[in-house]
């Protein structure tokens, strides 16, 4: 079996890569799991054959030839055809368009909508995983696998806006303080967990702490609408408890038992201070 490239690639290289992506998408959907992890040398044995006349979607698990070459920065995990587990917004929209134009889509609008929809659905699913009861909470690593920072961004800005609108004076300082407190707080809390020897990924943890703000967002909204102190107190307590309940499994599973309190206490502190901000704003 010959090892040469040229006579086994009848199509031009860029459409080859597009076809690769589509094939891998189909293969993966058939296999119903993360795609078989393929040995990731950029130069691997070429495909045995791709009959031009029949459907191009015949092939195989042979890793795609160099047309779409990739490398991971730490050389650990081989190139996983990215179509099946949709990476953050990039991959699928181009593989959805089987235009043979190469990995870039035809029009500007089509992929943008697809990508936006996918992003939005990812935000919603992440929110559901983190904040609402569901079977995945026991395995935190899996729950927030597709972390994204858009959700946290929206929630933090929303909370800042709520606080700012509720404030009668110094609106801009309130907003700036709220935003800076939440952003810096999330970063510091993550560093805290990492420094305690915890196993958590930086962005995953940032994402988590941002999503756990969702109950407090709701609390802030209600407090903005109803100005009664007692109502505010109750609402904030309930939503605070909810936030803490949401954040607890992820943080506690990341550090070992003796240091759990050390990791959890600052999180508790931050959310409580945000709760106080909500109550005290007038």
């Amino acid at each position, binding site marked *: 079996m010959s090892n*040469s490239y040229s006579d086994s690639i009848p199509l031009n290289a*860029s459409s080859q890569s597009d076809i690769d992506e589509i094939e891998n998408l189909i293969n993966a959907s058939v296999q119903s799991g993360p795609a078989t992890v393929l040995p990731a040398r950029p*130069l691997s044995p070429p495909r045995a054959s791709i009959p031009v006349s029949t459907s191009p979607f015949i092939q195989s698990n042979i890793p795609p030839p160099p047309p779409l070459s*990739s490398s991971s920065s730490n050389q650990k*995990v081989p190139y996983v055809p990215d179509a099946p587990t949709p990476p*953050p917004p990039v991959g699928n929209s181009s593989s959805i368009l089987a235009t043979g134009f190469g990995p870039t889509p035809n029009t500007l609008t089509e992929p943008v909508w697809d*990508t936006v929809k996918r992003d939005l659905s990812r935000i919603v699913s992440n929110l559901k995983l983190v904040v609402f009861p569901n079977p995945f909470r026991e395995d935190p690593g899996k729950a927030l696998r597709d972390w994204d920072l858009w959700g946290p*961004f929206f929630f933090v*800005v929303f909370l800042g806006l709520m606080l700012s609108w509720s404030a009668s004076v110094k609106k801009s300082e309130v907003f700036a303080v709220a935003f800076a407190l939440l952003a810096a707080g999330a970063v510091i809390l993550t560093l805290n967990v990492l420094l305690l020897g915890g*196993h958590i990924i930086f962005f995953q943890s940032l994402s988590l702490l941002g999503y756990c703000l969702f109950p407090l967002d709701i609390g802030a909204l209600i407090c903005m609408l109803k100005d009664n102190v007692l109502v505010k107190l109750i609402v904030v307590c309930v939503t605070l408890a909810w936030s803490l309940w949401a954040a607890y499994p992820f943080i506690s599973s990341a550090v070992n038992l003796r240091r759990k309190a050390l990791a959890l206490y600052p999180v508790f502190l931050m959310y409580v201070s945000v709760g106080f901000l909500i109550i005290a704003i007038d």
Partner: protein
Amino acid sequence: MDFSQPPGENYANPKTCFFHVLFKAAALAFYILSALFFNNFVVIFVVTVLLSALDFWVVKNVSGRILVGLRWWNEINDLGESVWRFECLDQESLARMNKKDSWLFWWTLYLSAVFWIVLGIFSLIRFQADFLLVVGVCLTLSIANIVGFTKCRKDAKKQIQQFASQTIASRVSSTIQSAFSVI
């Protein structure tokens, strides 16, 4: 700041180029002009950061792919480790990329980061910590894109060299093998 009206020649993807520049320019313009005209920090912050975030998204997902054929993202694999992926087109397609497109892409990317740094220095000089926050966020987003795409490009060059050397080796071996098979 007239990037979207270049002199003369042809861009292969004018719409993409336009959007690539649009949000960057809008964020910078809004920040600069609004600070002159009205004094509501919250609105400035939210609009500027929103435009910057949109720009980040557009560059990362759309114009990076279309204008220069590069993309990068982060995955968490089954072992729970975070892996950064950088991808590029093959050399043939890369060579076919429009030069003007990629020139625009890279230059606006770098220039916008430089502008944000300059604006940051201004706000430092004026002791306006609030605005420093805005500038900080926008700068972070620009730098993230720059780093991501630059890493893509470096990997691309490395792979192209590898590919070239190995292709030569494989061609040589294939001709030798075909020679032997004839015998």
